[in-house]
């Protein structure tokens, strides 16, 4: 009697779509964290640096990091919001789960829009 496969190999997440979605969800979380840290680091550095060339490089890094952060946050939020209806204290039917998911998405989009308006509207006016 022995284990034919001691532990899942490094590519276990390619075995099926659910493993893959999980992997993408978690990678998106890591990417979001890393790109946010990069943006913060670039902002601090650009304040300290007076060299224009370095500032340009930092701006480019910030630009790409921003898009990575945005893409990752969308993937991470969508996948987690999709999971939330299943962890409700009450049992929902498939239709009920879809409805809760749509409500959560609408709330999330609404809050994001509100955050963007609150943060960027004063900046654009200035």
């Amino acid at each position: 009697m022995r284990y034919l496969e001691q532990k899942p190999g490094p590519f276990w997440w390619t075995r099926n779509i659910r493993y893959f979605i999980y992997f993408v969800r978690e990678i998106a979380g890591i990417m979001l964290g890393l790109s946010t840290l990069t943006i913060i680091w670039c902002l601090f550095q650009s304040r300290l640096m007076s060299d224009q060339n370095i500032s340009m490089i930092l701006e480019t890094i910030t630009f790409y990091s921003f898009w990575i952060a945005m893409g990752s946050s969308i993937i991470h939020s969508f996948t987690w919001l999709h999971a939330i209806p299943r962890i409700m204290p009450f049992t929902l039917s498939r239709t009920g789960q879809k409805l809760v998911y749509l409500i959560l998405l609408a709330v999330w989009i609404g809050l994001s829009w509100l955050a963007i308006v609150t943060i960027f509207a004063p900046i654009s006016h200035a």
Partner: protein
Amino acid sequence: MKNFTLKIQRYDPETEKVYFEEHTVPYAKDLTVLDALNHIKEKTSAEIAYRWACRMGMCGSCGAIVNGKPALMCSTFCRTLKQPISLQPLRNFPVIKDLVVDTDDAMDKFREAMPYTEIQKRHINEKDETLQTPKQLKQLKQASQCIKCMLCYSACPVYGLNKDFIGPAAGALAQRYNKDTRDKIKDKRMDSVTGKNGVYKCSFIGECSEVCPKSVDPAASLQKLKVAGMFHAVKKTARTVIKKHEKNLHEIP
């Protein structure tokens, strides 16, 4: 189609040799993978080892990896599968021989879920029966359908990585008894399933629910236990603080 081809993974415990063996079975519309295996055992290769009993998806004995996915062989029709049909023993378990695996470890995990109730006797009822309303039964029915086939353990990469993890079926079982209105040991059970290798190790991949032949949805049960575990921890801490406070009050001269 004239024949089905089955590619069966063999494991000889004496020589420790692992190899694939191909067999063909005559086509039949309602042939299940288990029927095909029985045909092979009867006609060509009598020494193939596999478990089976009820042939109707109730006993949970005939679990195997069919074309890369954990499934009950008796509930899987050959005509629905891509050819050749590959058969392997369940993942994450030590193999005894061919398709027979040792599931003792996962079975032991069920003890941690404390799958029993301490029935409160109601004297208002003539025969001390503890009746349940259909509404109360509905709360636990889904989780109570588990047949311990171990497909969920086989599909769980977290269990594959950490054999100490309580696992999906044990989580579903704990949730089933937590939801039982006759239960009196919920706190003890919560302490047991929210321990170091308890439900919080689950990373909610959800494949366990996908492969479950009885739609038990162990992934959801584990997530619900996580939420319940959080409340349980808060309640437990509050109780300790209150007790300590009461003790301090009594000690004041």
